[in-house]
């Protein structure tokens, strides 16, 4: 039984909750909370930037988990989790980079600086872009799944090394790192936490839909193969013998 679309009552409710959450966060972030003492209004981007960055980490974490589980259990479910999480995670990485740059312009005066995190994230973006490229190469499902699982793991073991090397690199040179005031409290903290929750819910919503699309795509591929085989058999005049 193939569902007609990828939504369901639960996902629609989740989607509505995300929309409402975004509205609340927007009001809190733009109107209710005050500007930052040092950075002024630019700091409000933190309510978007940090939440998408958190979701991004969850996405790549899930991709790794899915890949490991696929190698272990060989279940299509985990493989689909891995690819969906990577795709949605990549979108959130893009958002993280873009919001970071938008924040960097008024704060640092430049869109791009070779800041440790910015550099790490850009490499991360490229690593997982490679994963998705490999993933979408035409191949047998089994071959494709194994190949992409290994690429995901190879990328994952690289992440700590990238992070360490880049932070050493910049740590050795940068004299003053501009960071948000370390104490963040009260309403600002609440807005930030709410932002993270809403972002994670949005991530989940996208993930569920992407998962179902990917699952259906695989179904089509599997069904297509069976169909082609039975068509060839029909052409050859072989009568299908249904096993009791």
């Amino acid at each position, binding site marked *: 039984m193939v569902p007609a679309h990828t939504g369901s009552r639960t996902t629609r409710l989740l989607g509505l909750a995300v929309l409402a959450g975004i509205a609340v966060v927007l009001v809190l972030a733009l109107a209710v909370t005050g500007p930052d003492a040092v950075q002024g209004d630019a700091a409000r981007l933190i309510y978007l930037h940090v939440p998408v960055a958190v979701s991004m980490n969850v996405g790549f974490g899930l991709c790794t988990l899915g890949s490991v589980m696929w190698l272990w259990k060989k279940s299509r479910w985990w493989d689909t989790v891995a690819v969906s999480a990577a795709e949605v995670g990549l979108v959130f990485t893009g958002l993280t980079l873009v919001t970071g740059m938008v924040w960097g312009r008024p704060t640092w005066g430049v869109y791009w600086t070779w800041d440790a995190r910015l550099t790490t994230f850009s*490499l991360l973006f*490229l*690593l997982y*872009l*490679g994963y998705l*490229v*490999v993933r979408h*190469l035409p191949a047998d499902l089994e*071959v494709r799944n*194994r*190949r992409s699982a*290994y*690429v995901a*793991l*190879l*990328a994952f*073991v*690289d992440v700590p*090394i*990238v992070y*360490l*090397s*880049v932070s*050493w*690199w910049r740590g*050795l040179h940068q004299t003053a790192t501009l960071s948000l005031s370390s104490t963040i409290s009260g309403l600002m903290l609440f807005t930030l936490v709410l932002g993270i929750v809403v972002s994670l819910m949005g991530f989940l919503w996208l993930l569920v839909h992407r998962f179902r699309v990917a699952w259906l795509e695989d179904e089509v591929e599997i069904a297509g193969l069976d169909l082609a085989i039975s068509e060839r058999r029909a052409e050859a005049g072989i009568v299908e013998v249904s096993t009791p």
Partner: protein
Amino acid sequence: MFRDAALVARKDLRIEWRSRVTTNQVAPFAVLVLILFAFALDPDRGVLQRATAGLFWVAILFSALLAVQRAFALEAADGNRDALRLSGLNPAGIFLGKAGAVALELGALEIVLGIGVVILYSTTLSGWLLLITTCVVATIGLAAAGSLYGVLAAGLRVRETLLPLLLLPVVAPVLLGATRAFEAALGQSTSDGWSWVELLTTFAVIYVAFGVLAFGSLLEEA
């Protein structure tokens, strides 16, 4: 495992020696890259000297791509890959042999490029122990990671364009670490070169271990 590795490495190196692809194509390419850097950057203002470490390792990285591609193109024709799989050789041994051969080729290239930067960029080499240690561990890391992605991409029609996209972001820490260690050795920075060597060693250990464990499965799939 090590006997198999030696066999595979000897085979690859013998093919390289006879076909002269590394000596006649990859090495001249690497030197060409050094010359192109001089065209791109102003050679008169000492930019080349100051950037020696980075330019050297970028040239090595590009050459490593060619070397890895070449190492796996050897088996692409006539079902040689299946022959290799069916040979009964230990997959971990095949990995170590392939990576070892690539590492030795890169090592030879590093000597050529080392002479190249001394002559073309008038760089004075110093801190030999750090220079050589960096070369050894960085090369092992590059060859190991390269061989893993090499075998992964080898059977694909898009391998020429896919390999750089997959490999370069992964080996970015090697470029970073090796360049910083070289700068320290050449006295161009005050940072501690040896801590970068530790990072490069970690990288090499991780990817060699990954290769020993996973290479068989990657070799099978194509």
